[in-house]
């Protein structure tokens, strides 16, 4: 795949006699890893684009122009535009409560934040269905008022918020703990009120963590499928989001339609990935490359950092 000599030159410093074996081992491991990633990651994703454009650009454009695709696309945008601000604002408030305050039930709150990670999206959808479905007291009450949640857009938004809830909180809490309260206390001593302290001191310090949480929340909102599929009821033109549209088209044997919607979603995912890269290089510049934080801080960064510090503490 690449020039062997440069690898040997830049690699570890093997002890004299082992140099040859070490190099062979290194190249073997590299080969295995690249083959694994190619077969598991790169080729499949490339295949979606190949399949989508198999019949030329025509069918793709045709699929993009269909009302079913358009309504699914705009529903996904609508859900994301509502979910992300709620998860961000409530996420920061919750992170502040968990990291900065002492109150009864805080440990329970902290545990609840992680729960969506341990739950199947299908189970998340089911639990919302049980609360807001027409057969439950709350659902019945709401439907008497003329509000339908399940098999309607509000239910899909609730499901997406449930699934995305941990991202902002789990990014912000470790940063709040790391920066401590010295600056906030100083601001407070100098006469700044809580709101001013938050806007001028706390928020600037946590803004990158918030941005990263927002990126993760956006990605998940655009792509959530299991939880949304349970509560949507798949009413065509009304509650079919882009991911549900992919499944619905595939099951209707409209392969071009399914692959077209998929490449739109894959394109959005690549944009998100780009955002993550920009964020990470920004962070590296800010703190220097030796910063010991996980590079991909995606889910539950705390255990990873715990583990990272475990040997040194």
């Amino acid at each position, binding site marked *: 795949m690449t020039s062997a000599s440069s690898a040997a030159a830049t690699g570890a410093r093997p*002890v004299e006699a082992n140099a040859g074996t070490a190099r062979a081992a290194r190249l073997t491991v590299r080969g295995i890893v690249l083959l694994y990633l190619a077969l598991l990651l790169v080729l499949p994703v490339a295949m*979606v684009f190949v399949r989508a454009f198999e019949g030329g650009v025509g069918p793709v454009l045709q699929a993009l122009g269909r009302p079913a695709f358009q309504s699914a696309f705009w529903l996904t945008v609508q859900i994301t535009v509502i979910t992300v601000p709620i998860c961000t604002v409530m996420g920061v408030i919750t992170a502040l409560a968990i990291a900065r305050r002492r109150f009864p039930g805080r440990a329970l709150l902290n545990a609840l934040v992680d729960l969506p990670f341990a739950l199947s999206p299908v189970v998340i959808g089911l639990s919302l269905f049980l609360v807001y479905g027409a057969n439950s007291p709350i659902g019945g009450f709401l439907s008497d008022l003329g509000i339908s949640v399940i098999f309607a857009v509000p239910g899909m938004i609730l499901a997406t918020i449930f699934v995305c*809830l941990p991202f902002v909180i789990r990014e912000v809490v470790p940063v709040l703990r790391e920066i401590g309260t010295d600056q906030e206390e100083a601001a407070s001593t100098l006469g700044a009120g809580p709101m001013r302290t*938050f806007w001028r001191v706390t928020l600037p310090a946590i803004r990158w963590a918030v941005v990263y949480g927002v990126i993760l929340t956006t990605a998940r909102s655009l792509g959530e499928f299991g939880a949304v599929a349970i509560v949507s009821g798949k009413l065509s033109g009304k509650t079919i989001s882009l991911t549900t549209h992919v499944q619905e088209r595939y099951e209707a044997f409209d392969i071009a339609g399914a692959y077209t919607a998929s490449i739109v979603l894959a394109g959005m995912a690549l944009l998100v990935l780009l955002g993550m890269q920009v964020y990470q290089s920004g962070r590296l510049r800010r703190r220097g490359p030796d910063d010991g934080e996980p590079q991909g801080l*995606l889910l*539950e960064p705390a255990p990873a950092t715990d*583990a990272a510090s475990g040997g040194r503490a």
Partner: protein
Amino acid sequence: MNARPQQRPGTIGSYDGRGLLGPGLAATYLGLIVLIPIAALLWQSFGDGLEAFIAAVTTPQALAALQLTFVTSTIVVLINVVMGTLVAWVLVRDDFPGKAIINSLIDLPFALPTIVTGLTLLALYGPRSPFGINIAYSPVSIIIALLFVTLPFMVRSVQPVLLELDRDMEEAAASLGASAPTVLRRIVLPNLLPAILTGSALAFARCMGEFGSVVLISGNIPLKTEVASVYIKGLVEGDRPSAAAAVSVLLLVVSLVLLTTFDVLRRRISRHSEAA
């Protein structure tokens, strides 16, 4: 899972220490979004009594789905322990042109919607595979889908620890005559173990509940390739919410027990290496 509040004297009287507005809003938010739905799930699962709960989770189809989910998850975590660690190793210790791009690609499974993942794998390993490999509608397809979605968990857990690992220790051992396998076994792996356990726990939890990436490629054949989440969805659509809730609760309990076990193991190992 990581509920370890850091006790710091002085934070009690922090700038917003008075008033319960913040905690109140946070509790309302988590209560409405998470706690009430989960309480409803528990309530519904035992709604028809304990016997109905046991009957719901012990039907042949439920048992087969739960067993398939558990077995495929275990295989995937074991493959991840080896391959995820190797990938992290290559990303940290090796150097070759294009490494930065591969490093970015590791996060792709997090960004890609799961239903697209399923379609993607079906395009390559389905009936029209360009390689002639058709694993669709078999348990192997479930394993491939789960390997795809969990790849970043192990890599991103191990990578930072490997990056931090002191090379002096390895060089000292090597200069004292330790062979490369000995250095790996006695120095590198023990240091990576807590991170490997963290990655395994995250991957396990994800596998147990995975739905989107599996649903298209597995074929969902009852008793053969139907995983727990697909089975639960079928029960919901078949208007059997109590049975669906019962299987969900069992699935959740298994996930939480696994996560706790991995966490306890990790803490014990971390403590050991600190003491040593």
